[in-house]
């Protein structure tokens, strides 16, 4: 199985959703708009994190959504439904996406919202989590950044059953740029 298929299978097993989208601003905007549905309500409030690796204009159309939230205060972010961030790496065996937490507001935007949408270029998928700590892999980016391996939505088994959606997002949607 190739890395992309393996990634997709593992991400689904971790209760994330995955969608393959061409690397194109309008296609991405369309995909985000279609995926961003909270409790059956379309066009929820969306915050988009500043770009770090991808060209900024790739997400400009999403930033221009009428319901986009630009205010970064805690009150504004806590009321935001959907957070869109880049993922600078994906992990094939675990279906994880790696998101910077020290770049602008990518941390809170991927955490405080009900749904997190991660934009992952398919050529950034690596085999195993540990590969990211290899200086030869992806230019050694995993050795310098503060980031989080995100594997599915937040979850707990502390309340008697397995529950998805605890302090972090209830849903993780991954847009794979192919």
């Amino acid at each position, binding site marked *: 199985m190739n890395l992309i298929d393996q990634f997709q299978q593992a991400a689904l097993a971790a209760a994330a959703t995955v969608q393959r989208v061409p690397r194109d601003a309008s296609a991405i905007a369309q995909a985000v708009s279609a995926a961003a549905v909270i409790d059956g309500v379309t066009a929820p409030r969306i915050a988009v994190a500043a770009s770090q690796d991808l060209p900024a204009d790739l997400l400009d159309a999403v930033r221009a959504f009428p319901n986009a939230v630009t205010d970064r205060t805690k009150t504004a972010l806590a009321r935001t439904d959907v957070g869109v961030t880049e993922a600078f790496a994906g992990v094939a065996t675990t279906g994880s996406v790696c998101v910077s937490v020290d770049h602008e507001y990518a941390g809170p935007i991927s955490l405080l919202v009900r749904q997190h949408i991660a934009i992952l270029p398919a050529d950034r998928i690596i085999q195993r989590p540990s590969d990211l700590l*290899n200086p030869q892999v992806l230019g050694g980016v995993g050795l310098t950044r503060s*980031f989080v391996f995100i594997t599915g939505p937040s979850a*707990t088994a502390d309340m008697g059953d397995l529950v998805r959606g*605890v302090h972090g997002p209830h849903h993780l949607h991954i847009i794979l740029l192919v």
Partner: protein
Amino acid sequence: MTPPAIAPPEDSPRSFADKSNKSAILTAIRFALRVESSAVRHNMQTFNRGRYTATAALPDYEALKDRARAIKENAIENLPALLQTLAESVHRNGGHFHLAADAVDAAGYVRDVCRAAAVRLVVKGKSMTSEEIGLNHVLEASGIEVAETDLAEFILQIADEQPSHIVGPAIHYSRQRITALFKRRFDTDLALDSGQELTAFARTRLREKFLSAGAGITGANLIAADSATLMLVESEGNIRMSSTVPPLHIAIAGAEKIVPTRQDFACFIELLAASSTGQPLTSYTSLITPPLRGAPVVADGPVTDRQFHLVIVDNGRTKMRDDPVLREALYCIRCAACLNSCANFQTVGGHAFGGETYSGGIGGSWEAGTRGLPQARFNELCTGCSRCINQCPVRIDIPWLNENLRHRLSQREAKLPARLRDALTGAPKEDRGVSLQKLFFGRYDHFGKWGARLAWLANPLGRLAPTRAILERAVGLDRRRSMPPFAAPTLVRSAKNLAPAPSTASTAKAVLFADIFTNFGSPARGLAAVKILRALGVDVIVSDCLPDGRAALSQGLIATATRQAQRTAEYLCKYLDEGREIVVVEPSVLAMFHLDYRRLLTSAKGAQQFDRLRAGTFDAGQFIASLLRRLRLDPAKIFPADRSPVGRRVFYHSHCQQKTVGCGSAGYDLLRAAGFDVATSQVECCGMAGSFGYKKEFYELSMAVGEDLFAQVRQADGDIPRALVVSGTSCAEQLHAGLGRPVLHLMQLLTDIVQPPT
């Protein structure tokens, strides 16, 4: 008519968190069996199954364990230098570093940092180290509100209880009990009758706290000295919240969490997740180097000055490092695989099998190291069944640590009469003063010898109620248990009457080791094995009976066990010199040769003997199975199941230590190949675990552990009971006690049906 009794309020687990008093252990076991056992069982067995699945999916699991072990050994060896490097890294990043000598120092530092920053509310991620230093009480005493945000810790904070597990602190709470607790504690009309609802309820309450907290406190799973990067593992998102949302982040971790470089995290990322919750990865594994550059979320516009403090806690760890036994515990990465794979722990959890903070097999060493030896008394609940050994991602021999704690506790508490008694009977100086109970079980070699000589007297006496009552009082042998009767004649004596082994054209040369349990208690098994081997053309003889050290070791009589091991190794190596392979009937004795002798035979010569014995000793069932394969004999012809006097339908239970040394399935496979309809058990241990279940204070626990096994037998029975077949002495007693049915040893079943090859 007496009025109906009013149920007394449930004892609080807090009241028996401190296990320095032996009665606290017994109270805790009773409480756990009554109140917590069903939730603990469910949660632990779920974790346990998950770990087996997840670790099996790691293609390089064993290599990862070796690597993890090597990194930890190296890190602890170089700890002083790593602390220096780490302090420099934190400063270079713009953070603050504090090395706290003890709990008071650590908690006081955190309190002062919070005060200086005028913090009124802190949000806290799960941190066993903060439990260890009693942080919440110190902060609350200074008027700082502490919100535990891990949902399990949230439950415990409401209930005012100590953790019952180092990864899932509230595994002793069922959903129903959580609902009842929340309804009691919060004024709410919500039903709160599902995990979903309870979680949503807690999320709402805690969300407010995250957004208004002045500081976030977390632990750390690992810390890289070169960069001061923290590895934080969780699933709920509360640690991400606590470490990234408030402007001030304080991380507290024991000094043992430091590894040299961020690259060293690589082998732990998957290994920890798989070993602990049984997932490929948990929802969030953060690698962060605080203070973060991205701005914290604040009420009124962005600010950029985040603050970070790293508090490294010693609190006894330097002393542990200097102690050759407790040093092993410093390698622990707190995955809890040893808790989850432990049959006792699965039944009572960490309120009984644990102390103030740490629990399970590894917990005794941590309580001893951070709080003091008497607090480690709950280590008695480690039966030495060995199931945790292969589960530990850093290869800690946890039973060995507990045997040592037991030894030290005995030494500390030895009373003068016991010391005198032992001096007069010639016990090794290091083992003097142990309780009569430990002496009784630990020196079965003595009791067995005299019992067998006086079997005509001892056996009828042993069946009498008054004798049982006396034994129960004197040595704590529970009167509801029956010890296997002493055998007359012993295996060694019976073997003398056997015809000499056929010496010509033998298929293999072997010696059957006459261990003390088989020799004095169950010689028929040994004779059965000899008969089978001879039928297969093996030139087999029976050894002398020597104590191998198992009984002594299990009671913490380490010096005695060492002497016995040295003698037995010396003796058995002579057979290896003669070219004989050594066949062992009792799995707990085989495990001595395969595992424990590594610790007991430490000289260069001893190490060599250990290697030879490990390669040259075999489980009887495994030996027979491999012989059949080598001789290309069909098991169905040699052991035709249709000749079985107990029928073809059997239930086979393999011994815990047999599984650990890699021959757990040999008996099962052999029976199946022979044409039996075999069902088998899926439990870690039967609950008897050698002498454990015979002890008066542990009888109820032992039987409760056995319930899973008994249930599996009943389920496999269907309408017609299956014949019970085992490979170990104590498992037979346990199955007999639980099901009231005869239990056969594998060798006895096979010897009845063996057909010599034509």
